[in-house]
């Protein structure tokens, strides 16, 4: 791995984003707006005294789900373009190492993801007064990690699509099942055995578990550490698999 090439790739991807202000605006603003929609959705909720708002639970989970979804889409399409336009093949004839390319990509989008998470978390805290026990820093960290997870999965999935149309079709295959099973609609321990088993191998489940840990405990717990490690493991696994899909030579 060569840090210079990795950094050049990261800067190049950021530069491409900079030249596309509309996409940047969408990345930064859309999760915050959707959060507002969820807030208003539960606005007329009748609460018994002492009962937490549904928004506190659902809104918090969204801080993990939105970045994951957005970054998955953005990355898989960007990477697909790289494959289709011939720039990938060209790059692979240069001395660049595959890891430089993938990590450069992941880093650039992670920077975007961090900004996105900061905006969304700030809105959740300061505009909608979300109330959770733990430190907001943990929320941002999990949120960034889910975004990176989306990036890594997107890099991987782009290998299995040949057109942008197909790439978008991976959304319902890869992202929606994770949203259904992550514990947003039904707590994971209340699902039937099969679905719970499936949810155990889906990375987004650990993001939501981690967010719940932060919500319920003022101090970081052992379970939170575990969730973070599992997510990091998934990121590395996806990047590793993605690097296997980058072939310098075609048959």
């Amino acid at each position: 791995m060569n840090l210079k090439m990795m950094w050049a790739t990261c800067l190049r991807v950021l530069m491409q984003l900079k030249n596309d202000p509309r996409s940047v605006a969408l990345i930064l603003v859309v999760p915050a707006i959707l959060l507002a929609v969820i807030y208003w959705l539960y606005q007329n909720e009748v609460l018994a005294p002492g009962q937490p708002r549904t928004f506190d639970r659902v809104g918090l989970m969204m801080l993990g789900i939105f970045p994951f979804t957005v970054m998955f889409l953005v990355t898989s399409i960007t990477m697909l373009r790289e494959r289709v336009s011939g720039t990938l093949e060209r790059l692979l004839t240069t001395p660049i190492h595959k890891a430089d390319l993938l990590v450069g990509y992941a880093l650039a989008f992670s920077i975007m993801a961090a900004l996105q998470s900061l905006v969304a978390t700030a809105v959740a805290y300061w505009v909608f007064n979300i109330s959770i026990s733990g430190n907001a820093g943990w929320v941002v960290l999990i949120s960034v990690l889910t975004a990176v997870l989306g990036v890594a999965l997107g890099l991987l999935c782009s290998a299995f699509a040949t057109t942008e149309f197909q790439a978008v079709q991976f959304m319902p295959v890869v992202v929606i099942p994770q949203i259904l099973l992550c514990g947003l609609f039904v707590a994971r321990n209340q699902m039937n055995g099969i679905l719970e088993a499936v949810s155990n191998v889906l990375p987004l489940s650990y993001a939501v578990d981690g967010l719940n840990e932060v919500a319920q405990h003022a101090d970081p717990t052992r379970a939170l550490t575990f969730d973070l490690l599992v997510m990091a493991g998934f990121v590395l696994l996806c990047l590793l698999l993605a690097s296997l899909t980058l072939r310098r030579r075609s048959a």
Partner: protein
Amino acid sequence: MSHRAVLPEPDGQLPFPHPLGMSPPTPALPLKPGRHDAGTSVRVENLTVRRGRMEVLKDLSFSIPSGHITALLGPSGSGKTTLIRTLVGVQKFVGGSIEVLGRPAGDATLRGEIGYVTQAVSVYKDLSVLENVRYFGAMSGCSHADAVAAVAAVGLAEISRRKAGALSGGQFSRVSLACALVSKPKLLVLDEPTVGLDPVLRADLWAQFTAMAAAGTTLLISSHVMEEAGHADTLLLLRGGRLLAQLTPAQLRQRGGSENLELAFLRLIQADMAVAS
């Protein structure tokens, strides 16, 4: 049978009888003198490439002299791009051997020394001309000044801040060229670089290629426009995945019995078909 194409010996026989019955074999014309000469850049022996079940290249043998322009010519679908991709190391082959700059094709150490310009323009449309060239330059450790020089070399200095996607077709393809030039490769491989360019630009580019060869770069340029062949030192004539001949433009004119290179090539093809049938 082997389609070994070599520059004919001074008293050489044609690889196949000439059915048109003209122009007896003539002595090989020496390559233009005064060029940098360091032997052979590419040596290909009995190369066979299969894509799927199709045998795209069949038993090719030839060599590319250093510091010269070699034009790879042939009709669409003759295997030009596959041959180029195999030489730069992105296409696997099933038989034969390729030595590029003294190493096997695809060798990791070759990546910094070969410039490859694909047929489709492969640059980032959403980056400026200079940003594109700087990025590809960074892969070979080139400086900002190198990038500026490469942009100037293809005549895009004045519009170097414009987005590549906003340029005209001719300018766009020159961005791709600049991205390959920036690393000052020893071997520059260009797949149809002049396609869709106007005559003035084409002449311009060929003048540039000639200057580069004079400076010691080895160039392999594919084209399906036979008129361009006149600019090259050596021609590789490809048809149906086989190498018809390797010769100089003058030899092609003589063998094909026409000053018109296109017609000469056509006659060679007809001669080959006559042998095959």
